[in-house]
């Protein structure tokens, strides 16, 4: 080891471990993203309990059944939780300060039972605030199709 036990730190080596996983997003998420390109917000609906998931889920954990029904949802929803983030996680895993704080919200769309975590374009966000999705149907990256929410009205 070289270092005297109990005195010096153990020598450190940065050894890359960069496995790449080629996940399929699955038919459900693919349909969700394709629908956003047409400006439609599609949630999945459990055939047994009627619970609506957005983003869509393929299995209802409560009814223990495969979910195959779809429902189009409005762009409006309510903030369930929100935070002003002053930090983000850097690629090395450290928490680093953001240049400007940003608001992250959990939004429950009208007609949905689950939440989407997204950026909220508001400086005075609060729980219960009514918001609408900002859809950029022309975005090249599917993640930018539904990138943020803004206060309603």
């Amino acid at each position, binding site marked *: 080891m070289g270092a005297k036990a109990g005195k010096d730190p*153990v020598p450190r080596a940065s050894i890359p471990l960069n496995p790449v996983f080629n996940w399929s997003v699955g038919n459900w998420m693919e349909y969700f993203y394709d629908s956003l390109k047409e400006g439609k917000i599609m949630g999945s609906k459990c055939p047994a309990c009627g619970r609506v998931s957005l983003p869509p889920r393929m299995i209802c954990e409560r009814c223990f059944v495969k979910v195959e029904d779809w429902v189009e949802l409005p762009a409006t929803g309510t903030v369930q939780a929100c935070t002003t983030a*002053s930090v983000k996680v850097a690629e090395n895993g450290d928490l680093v300060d953001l240049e400007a704080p940003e608001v992250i919200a959990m939004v429950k769309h009208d007609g949905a039972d689950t939440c989407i975590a997204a950026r909220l374009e508001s400086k005075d966000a609060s729980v219960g605030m009514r918001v609408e999705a900002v859809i950029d149907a022309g975005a090249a990256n599917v993640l930018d199709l539904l990138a943020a929410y803004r206060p309603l009205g």
Partner: protein
Amino acid sequence: MPAPRTYWISSRPTGRWDKGGDNVDKEVAIIAYAQTKYEADANASRELQVLEVTVAALKAAGLKREDLDTIITANNDYLDGRTISNMRLVEPSGAWRKNESKVEMDGAFAMLYAVTRILSGDHDIALVVAESQASVYGTYLPGIMMLDPTFDRQRWLLNEVSAAALQASSYMDAAGVSVEQIAGVAAKNLENAALNPVALRSLKGADAKKVLASRPLCSPITELMASPLCDGACALVLASAKAAAKAEKPVWVKGVGFSHDSYLTERGSLDNMGSLKLAAEACYKQAGIDDPASQIELAELHECFAHEELMAYEALGFCDPMQGGAFFDSGATKKGGELPVNTSGGALGANVACAAGLTRVIEAAMQIRGDAGKHQVKGVKTALAHGQTGLCAQENIVYVLGGE
């Protein structure tokens, strides 16, 4: 030595598993434990830290490696940067050519595995070892790797801190809890940690003001409300009733319950810890606890963030729903209160991924045995320990421990 008693393991408060145990009349005791000092960057490899706690725990139990029947480790391939991360822990945990297995969650769940191994009747002595080193892995990357890879992970908004902040926001709104009350929890635990020789972070004379003045992370969470992820290891020796008969001051596992909640965006609401409540109910049923606030004398909770402790008061039935803030304000959970919580400083004093929950079990057992040194609370006979895994406390486990 208590009389043999029917014992069973259940993941839910009601259901057919609860009928089980008719043929089981064994008990399981904690007979020894050991912890490293928790450090930001330990001057030892994980293997040496595991060796340190294994040797110390065996010595405390008066046992040799040959006496170990089964060894369960808690560690994580991602955190250790290698697949089958328990492989090189075989040597330092005394597991060479023995019955060894691993749980890739908190050590409190590895302990559950060890408890069931003993209850099977095939083993008398089990060792549970938990470790990780935050100085080795990218500290906040594992939290991001827990996210749904097809959606949340790629958006890079949620992480351990922002997810916890969203839960805090939801809880504060529902229960009318103030940021000062959350900061107060952190101040209490950091003050307690000053008397715990193995804690990493402590603050003598801590108050809510100092906590609120620390670096802002994601509102309402500031740096001192977030547990410090760090390096360390801990070990626990469990024994069957037969083997524990020879042990000094055994601490009995009176009950255990565990439950797994939905992924954080799918819970409907984050304003309560539903799976912790179910875990506690199952545990209390086994342990014969029907009034937790009066029957439990001390609790060690795995609060990764300060607000989780308030939410846990409610889920564990220490107070009524939505009364976590008021219960904290009553002073009951301070050292010297009626139900001291986290006299060790809790996870806010040191949070070793995979080990922080098992540490809570060890600290609770230390209190029952009168082993807790400067942070000892007098006369503790029944104590609760809690462990968790996942974002926003997705999976929870609760133990009730008791002395003779």
